[in-house]
C-alpha cells in the first residue's frame, strides 16, 4: 500500500507538491492553531488565486517551449482597458471582454514576433514587458482608479475569496483537460518536446505557439480583473514582475520544466497554493517577508533539482 502510494507520488508530477502542501498546512495548523479556519482560508486564497490563473496560462507557454515574461504587465493593463471602455459607455460585461481582447492582442504580438521574426520569447516578452508597463502608466497617468460594478458582481468576479479560488480551480481543470485530452494540448507537448519532429509530422508549430501566447495573455488579463474586483482598485503598479515571477515559480515547483514538452496545470495550481500557504503561514507566525523570499528561493532550487533527477529516473524506466 505504502509503496503503491510512493509509486504514484513518483509517477505523477503533481503529487510531490500536493504532499508538500498538506505537510505545510499541518505544520501551520499546529503552530498557529487558526490556520484551518474559514477566515484564514479566505486570506490564503487571496495570495494564491490570481497567481494560479497566471500560472495556468504560463504552463501552456512553457510546455510548448517558450516563456512569457510580460504577463505581470498584462495583468495590470487589462483592467484599465476595461475601465476606459466602461467610461466610454460600454456595459461592464462587454468592457471586460474588450479588456480581455486587448490582453489577447498582446499575446498575438508576442507570438507573431517570436515565431515569424524568430526572436527568443525571452527577448520578445522582455520587450513587451517594458512596453506594456510604460503604456499602462501613460494611459492611467500613474494613478489608480476604482472599478465600477455592483457589489454582487464584484463578489462573483473575485471579490469573494471562495469565488476567487473557484475561478482558479475551474480554469486549471479546464486547461488540464485541454492539455491532456485534446489535439491542441497534444500538439503543445509535441512542439515543446520535439520542434523539428513536430514540423516534420505536419503540425503547424507557429500556430500552436501563437495560440498559447494568446491564451496565456488572456488569462493574465483575467487574473488582473479578478484582483481589481477583489481589491476594489485598478492600480497601474499592481502585479508587475513580482506576480509574474510568482506565477513562473508556481509552475516550476508544480512540476513544469522550462525546457518544454513537460508540464502540468494542476501542479501549477498546487504550486500557487503552496506559495500562498507559505506566505500566509509566515504572516500568521510573524515571520518577515524577507525570510519568505529566502524560503521561496530555496524551494525553487530544491524542487527543480528533484524534478530534473526524477525525470532522468523516469526516462530510464526505473519508475
Amino acid at each position, binding site marked *: 500500500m505504502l509503496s503503491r502510494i510512493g509509486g504514484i507520488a513518483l509517477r505523477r508530477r503533481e503529487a510531490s507538491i500536493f504532499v508538500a502542501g498538506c505537510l505545510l498546512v499541518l505544520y501551520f495548523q499546529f503552530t498557529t492553531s487558526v490556520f484551518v479556519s474559514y477566515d484564514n482560508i479566505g486570506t490564503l486564497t487571496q495570495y494564491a488565486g490570481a497567481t494560479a490563473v497566471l500560472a495556468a496560462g504560463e504552463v501552456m507557454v512553457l510546455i510548448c517551449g517558450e516563456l512569457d515574461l510580460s504577463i505581470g504587465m498584462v495583468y495590470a493593463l487589462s483592467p484599465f482597458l476595461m475601465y476606459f471602455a466602461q467610461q466610454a459607455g460600454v456595459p461592464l460585461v462587454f468592457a471586460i471582454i474588450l479588456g480581455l481582447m486587448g490582453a489577447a492582442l498582446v499575446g498575438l504580438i508576442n507570438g507573431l514576433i517570436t515565431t515569424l521574426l524568430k526572436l527568443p520569447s525571452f527577448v520578445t516578452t522582455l520587450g513587451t514587458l517594458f512596453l506594456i508597463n510604460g503604456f499602462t502608466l501613460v494611459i492611467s497617468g500613474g494613478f489608480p482608479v476604482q472599478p465600477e460594478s455592483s457589489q454582487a458582481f464584484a463578489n462573483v468576479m473575485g471579490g469573494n475569496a471562495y469565488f476567487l479560488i473557484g475561478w482558479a480551480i475551474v480554469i486549471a481543470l479546464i486547461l488540464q483537460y485541454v492539455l491532456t*485530452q485534446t489535439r491542441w494540448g497534444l500538439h503543445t507537448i509535441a512542439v515543446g518536446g520535439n520542434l523539428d519532429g513536430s514540423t516534420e*509530422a505536419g503540425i503547424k508549430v507557429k500556430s500552436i505557439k501563437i495560440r498559447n501566447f494568446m491564451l496565456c495573455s488572456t488569462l493574465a488579463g483575467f487574473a488582473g480583473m479578478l484582483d481589481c474586483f477583489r481589491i476594489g482598485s485598478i492600480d497601474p503598479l499592481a502585479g508587475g514582475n513580482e506576480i509574474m515571477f510568482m506565477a513562473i515559480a508556481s509552475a516550476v515547483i508544480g512540476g513544469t520544466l522550462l525546457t518544454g*514538452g513537460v508540464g502540468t496545470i494542476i501542479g501549477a495550481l498546487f504550486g500557487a497554493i503552496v506559495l500562498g500557504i507559505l506566505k500566509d503561514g509566515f504572516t500568521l507566525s510573524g515571520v518577515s517577508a524577507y525570510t519568505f523570499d529566502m524560503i521561496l528561493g530555496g524551494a525553487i532550487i530544491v524542487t527543480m533539482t528533484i524534478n530534473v533527477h526524477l525525470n532522468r529516473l523516469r*526516462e530510464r524506466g526505473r519508475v
Partner: protein
Amino acid sequence: MANKDNDLVRLENVAKRFGPVQPLKNVNLRVGRGEVLGLLGNNGAGKSTLMKILCGYHPASEGKMFFDGEEVNLRSVTHARQLGIDCVYQDLALVSELNVYHNMFLQREPVRGGFLGILDNKRMKADAQRHLDDMGVNIPSVDVEIAKLSGGQRQAIAVARSVYSDARLLLLDEPTAAMGAKEGAMILDVINRLRAKGEVSVIIIAHNYAQIFDVCDRINLLRDGEIVFDKRAEDTSVQELTDIVVHEYRHAAETLNE
C-alpha cells in the same frame, strides 16, 4: 524509357538550394506503381533532402513533380499526406514525452466533438496495438513514453506509423539504421509484404546492400546532386554497387586532396 503512365511519382530537373549550399542540382527520378526503389549515395549526397521534397517538407528550388499523372505543387507535409505520400524521416519525428499511440497518430489523431478536438484515445490505443502486433513489433505497452524505448523500437514505431497510414507512396529514410539484425529483418519483411500486394510504391534509403537487394525492384545512386545510376536490381549486383561506392570514396578523397 519506361511507360510514363506507369509512374506513380516523377521528378523532373529538380534542384534544391539552402543559401550557398546546393545539395540537389538536377534530379530526374521516377517510381512505378507498386515499385520499390532503393536510393543510394554518400553521406551528405542529398538523399534526405530529396525525400523531404517528395513529402512536402521542403519546397524545391527548381523543377517539377508529377504524382499520379498530374503535376503537383506540394504546399505542406499535410498536403502531401492528403495525396497519399508519407515519410519516415531519418530523425524519426517522434516525441519522447508522448506515449507510443499518441506518436503513432501524431497530427492525424482521431477526434470526437468536432472543433473541440477531443482525442479518441481508446481508438488510437486499439489501432496502434493492432498495427504493431500485425507488423511484429515488440514493445512493453503502447502506453509507455517513447523515451523509454530502444533506438530500434523507436524506428519500428516510426515505420509502423507510416506503413499503416494508407499511403500510396512510402518514403523510408534509413529505416533500419538503429536496428539489430532481427528488427531489420522485420522491417524488410513488411516492405516485402507491401511489394507482394503491389498497391504501395516505396523509396528506401539504406546503406546495407544485402538489404537493398532483398527488397528493391530498382536501384538509383545520387551523386553530386544528380541521379547517376539507374538499374533494375536483377541487372546489377552487390559487387557492382560496392565498386561504385569504393570509386565514390576515392573520388571524394581526391577532391579533398586537391
